[in-house]
């Protein structure tokens, strides 16, 4: 009983493979289109998954620079330190003394000589404050507060830039959303049409099988296999495309990473994500076939 069942499924499986190979160009093209359509949202997902790694290192979280008055005392500095400790919007901070700043200037810009010639250190003491990742408006508010603290010459926060960044991020998000919507439609459409094509070329088979006593499950089976297999192949294609594209992009990213003196690169699709991707596309193909065959079977039902 089980052997017969296995035999039947094995037969259908080999039949499906034979059919995929019998019209290789058409099927390859369908698989390719499906692969491309799937690879774009999956690729965007992979890139987004990579974002935390990258952005964590780049640290685009807002920074406020507090420049102290030239006449600020150690007490003033301690007071500011306490206030920063208490403020819940402050993620971390760093004190940069005027001597440190001058030394850094020397190092950074090879200005050793120029600095030596300075009559006095013109730089102020400063705090570099990393804030929590909240909206630019709130940070701006915080900056205004800090400006009123004692011994603060100037609190600087480039809120304009932060706002621009925020707006650009929103813009990107909308762009990605538009893309995803379009591509999802495309995937479903391609799936549906590929299987419709299959059914059109196998109309007689469906009809004859039905007329000589095949159950719907029997008729459906090869199409479901076909859909699933094609979905799977589409998933594999998408995986290959993404992996290849990441390779190219990583070459480009290495340049950027070098500029940031950091070592990041886009990670390939993970083990688990690969499995979900393939399962999902297989399932999508299966489902598309089911819907497509069902509507067709219904049409040839005697009335």
């Amino acid at each position, binding site marked *: 009983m089980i052997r017969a069942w296995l035999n039947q499924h094995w037969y259908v499986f080999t039949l499906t493979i034979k059919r995929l190979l019998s019209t290789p160009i058409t099927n390859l093209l369908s698989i390719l289109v499906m692969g491309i359509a799937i690879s774009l949202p999956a690729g965007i997902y992979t890139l987004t998954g990579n974002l935390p790694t990258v952005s964590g290192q780049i640290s685009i979280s807002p920074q406020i620079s507090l420049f102290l008055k030239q006449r600020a005392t150690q007490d003033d500095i301690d007071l500011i330190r306490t206030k920063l400790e208490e403020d819940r919007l402050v993620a971390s901070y760093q004190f940069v003394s005027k001597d440190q700043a001058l030394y850094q200037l020397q190092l950074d810009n090879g200005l050793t000589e120029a600095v030596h010639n300075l009559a006095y250190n013109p730089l102020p003491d400063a705090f570099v404050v990393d804030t929590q990742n909240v909206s630019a408006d709130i940070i701006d508010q915080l900056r205004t507060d800090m400006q009123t603290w004692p011994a603060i010459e100037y609190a600087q926060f480039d809120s304009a830039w932060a706002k621009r960044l925020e707006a650009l991020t929103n813009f990107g998000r909308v762009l990605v959303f538009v893309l995803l919507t379009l591509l999802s439609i495309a995937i479903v459409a391609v799936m549906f049409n590929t299987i419709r094509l299959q059914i059109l070329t196998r109309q007689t088979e469906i009809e*004859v099988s039905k*007329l*000589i006593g*095949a159950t719907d499950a029997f008729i459906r089976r090869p199409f479901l296999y076909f859909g699933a297999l094609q979905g799977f192949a589409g998933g594999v294609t998408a995986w290959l495309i993404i992996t290849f594209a990441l390779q190219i992009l990583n070459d480009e990213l290495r340049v950027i990473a070098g500029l940031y003196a950091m070592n990041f690169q886009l990670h390939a699709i993970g083990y688990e994500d690969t499995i979900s991707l393939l399962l999902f596309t297989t399932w999508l193909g299966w489902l598309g076939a089911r819907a497509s065959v069902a509507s067709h079977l219904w049409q040839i039902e005697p009335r």
Partner: protein
Amino acid sequence: MIQLRHVSKRFPDGYMALSNVDLTIDTGEMVFVTGHSGAGKSTLLKLIATIERPTSGSITINGHNIAQIKPAALPFLRRKIGFVFQDHKLLFDRTVFENVLLPLQISGFDRNTATSRIRAALDKVGLLSKENVLPITLSGGEQQRLCIARAVVHRPAILIADEPTGNLDSAYARDIMAMFFSFHQVGVTVLIATHDANLLEDNKHRIIALQQGKLQNDQSMA
């Protein structure tokens, strides 16, 4: 036993292909259906084979009213019937062997039994040497014989043949008819639609004549 009571068939375009047909065919009987082209022979056979549904009236096969049968049970009823289609309905992307294999696959035969049965059926219709070719390369008569092999391979209880000898020369037609007779002899109910005068002349079986969708003449009753 096949029973038709007040059966009519009106097609969606309004054409009345059968009107008010009453007919009883006993189990194991052999019946010829005749009539002009377009008289409704194929329609009658299709109704009995549950391929079409009657517009009105009832059709009972072995006690099951097929108008009331559940769609899920229909396939199992159809497996008891062998149908030789007038337009053959072969699958042109499968070999001769695979075409005959189809009904056995549907009924779930195992491969070995299937193979020997298929060979036997192909041998009877003279196509054993062509088992691995595609039907597109068969001549018209060969295609018709293939369709016959497919209809009988699973040894149905009811054999329905629509114009089975239309493309066959008289020698082959005789062979095929002999085959149908032998099925009849082992208790199979056989229904044959034909306009072949030769087949109808020298036979002692029941002949039903249709004219424009109406039962015109039923020789067994006469």
